């Protein structure tokens, strides 16, 4: 395979401001040298990114060649809209793909989430994961030591009880948990991670995930396991600071990193930030653990991924593919994974440099959690509307509505919305 085959091209890469992106910038020079392709990186903050990326890939003119995409319904919608280029043909072409690339190094679940059409024969791959996040438990070792005698709760019920306890003792300064509760579709993954914990080991398959019973016309939001999962979430919010319902991730993580909360349940990607003494008051004091179990002794959870894709409207797809291939090869995945703490290739977790760069507790926890995660995505138009309804249900439970009543209403609302 000739890395120089597209030399002289210039490609535009549209990225979200993600730790991966920051790390990538340091390596782009090497790619340019190796391929002779010039790379222009356009990176935007996440909340601006989605809108712009969606405009860019759907436009008639080419705006970006390679772009970062959320490997959930966002990718799915683009696929439906025919805006994204299938990558399988490139992978299958020996002239375009290096023999050492090894797609199988990615866990099956990651690949499945980016292959369409779902559940049909011969699906095509549309994105390659660049980072993943598993929903895990972070704790403040000092506070756990002070209030719980160092014992990390083993079950969800214990966790919530302990968190409530800490809040009660914390005199309005220290709280048991810090969770994001702001009404936003962004909440989908954290929330799904916790519901998956309540769901346990039972199967849940894409595109419906746990939410539908194998058919879009059969929502099961009033399933007792979902009710339980949502009430966990509400319970954790309740054990948090009083304005938790207005907290986005930036507020929840800041609250935790200032040392005011004992527990924080969210994506593993926050880990590296907490260990940075410049931005965190609790660097070196953070403990990591898989989500506490809700039944049995294993805590289940969800994972979620960013991927990169090639825009259908790109005029330089071959050069774009070279970039995608390079950025996701084994070496780069491990190198860039250092920044995200979530390298999506199995091989990375065996990479000494990668593991060494991260907190040992963190690596252990994420590695364990990875064994018990499922995708948090649902592939359906309008899914984010439903997510907001789910968030509303959490808010209701938070405000005191009985979980059963909340999910019953949720079920009706979802039916209305999807009808």
């Amino acid at each position: 395979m000739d890395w120089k085959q597209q030399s002289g091209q210039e490609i535009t890469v549209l990225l979200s401001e993600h730790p991966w992106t920051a790390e990538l910038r340091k390596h782009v020079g090497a790619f340019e040298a190796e391929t002779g392709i010039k790379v222009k990186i356009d990176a935007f903050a996440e909340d601006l990114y989605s809108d712009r990326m969606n405009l860019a890939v759907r436009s008639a003119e080419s705006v970006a060649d390679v772009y970062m995409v959320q490997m959930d319904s966002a990718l799915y919608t683009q696929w439906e809209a025919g805006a994204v280029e299938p990558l399988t043909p490139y992978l299958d072409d020996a002239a375009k793909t290096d023999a050492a690339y090894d797609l199988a190094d990615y866990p099956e679940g990651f690949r499945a989430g980016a292959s369409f059409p779902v559940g049909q024969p011969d699906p095509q791959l549309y994105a390659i994961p660049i980072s993943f996040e598993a929903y895990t438990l972070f704790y403040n070792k000092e506070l756990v030591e002070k209030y719980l005698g160092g014992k990390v709760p083993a079950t969800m019920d214990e966790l919530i009880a302990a968190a409530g306890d800490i809040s009660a003792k914390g005199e309005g300064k220290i709280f048991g948990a810090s969770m994001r509760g702001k009404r936003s579709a962004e909440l989908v993954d954290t929330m799904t991670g916790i519901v998956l914990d309540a769901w346990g080991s039972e199967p849940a398959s894409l595109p419906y995930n746990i939410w539908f019973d194998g058919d879009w016309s059969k929502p099961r939001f009033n399933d007792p396991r979902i009710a339980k999962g949502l009430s966990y979430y509400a319970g954790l919010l309740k054990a948090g600071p009083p304005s938790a319902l207005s907290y986005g991730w930036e507020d929840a993580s800041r609250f935790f990193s200032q040392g005011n909360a004992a527990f924080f349940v969210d994506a593993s990607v926050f880990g590296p930030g907490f260990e940075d003494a410049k931005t965190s008051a609790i660097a070196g004091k953070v403990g990591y653990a898989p989500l506490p179990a809700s039944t049995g002794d294993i805590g289940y959870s969800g994972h979620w991924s960013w991927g990169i894709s090639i825009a259908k409207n790109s005029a330089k797809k071959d050069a774009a593919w070279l970039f995608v291939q390079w950025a996701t090869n084994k070496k780069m995945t491990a190198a860039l994974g250092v920044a995200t703490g979530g390298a999506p290739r199995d091989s990375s977790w065996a990479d000494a440099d990668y593991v060494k760069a991260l907190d040992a507790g963190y690596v252990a926890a994420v590695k364990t959690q990875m064994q018990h995660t499922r995708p948090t995505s649902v592939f359906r138009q309008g899914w984010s509307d439903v997510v907001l309804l789910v968030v509303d249900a959490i808010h209701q439970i938070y405000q005191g509505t009985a979980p059963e009543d909340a999910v019953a209403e949720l079920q009706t609302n979802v039916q209305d919305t999807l009808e």
Partner: protein
Amino acid sequence: MHRDKHIRWLIAPALLLLAAGTLYPVIYAGYLSLLQWNWGSEAKFVGFRNFVRILSGTGFPKALFNTFYFAVFAVVIETLLGLGLALAINRIRIGAGLIRTLMILPLMVSGIAVSLIWKVMLDPTLGIVNYLLSLVGIVGPAWLGTVPTAMPSIIMIDTWWQTAFTFIILSSALKSLPTEPFEAARLEGATPFQTFRHVTLPMLKPVLITVIIFRTIDTLKVFDIIFGTTGGGPLRATESVQTLAYQTAFKSYKFGESAAIAVVFSLIILTLCIIYLMIDTDDGEKA
């Protein structure tokens, strides 16, 4: 000067810009509102189904209510406050320029930054506001975090942010009023309030009406400070028409429905404006 034949050229450039900027999107939006279209996939003509949907659902009416709740309070407070401040500062001779500049600083902060800073300041635990309140023995509420306090908090944030808008316009309007009627009113024994009521207010009327119209539209279109602080929560307590429409368009990709929301909403605002223009028959009367 009715005989001025060229006067119609004065409006031409504005009409041109206006036509270019609005005709196409307005027609487009009207058309979109009749479609079921998910941006990319096939568009399907569904007639007025989108309208029926949004009007019969709970989301839109709730958002509409919230929006008016917000708008009414924000406009009233900001107008009164802006007017009061403009009147007060108008009496200041020395340092007025500096004071005015400092007072319009909030307006210069972008919506994102406003949301961030106020969320930081209003944090019940880590925020300066409740800390300062605690110094005087008040236990501050959870501001953005509870249903009853969320919207008032947003109104408060908007008041901080946008009062400068009404203030600066009314300030300059006060500056351009003729001084003679004020002197006459003083001699007639008018108290400051009476002067305000009978002289200042009527003379400010054209500007004041304009300010209110634009503030009303602005507040009805409220988006960034809600999006940035509560995202419409808790429990939809702060969801506005714009956040709903945004969500519908850019998060759910339901462009037809989003356009329908916009159309209904525009019609409501339009009706308000037309009612105003009908009532206001004697605008522009001169001495």
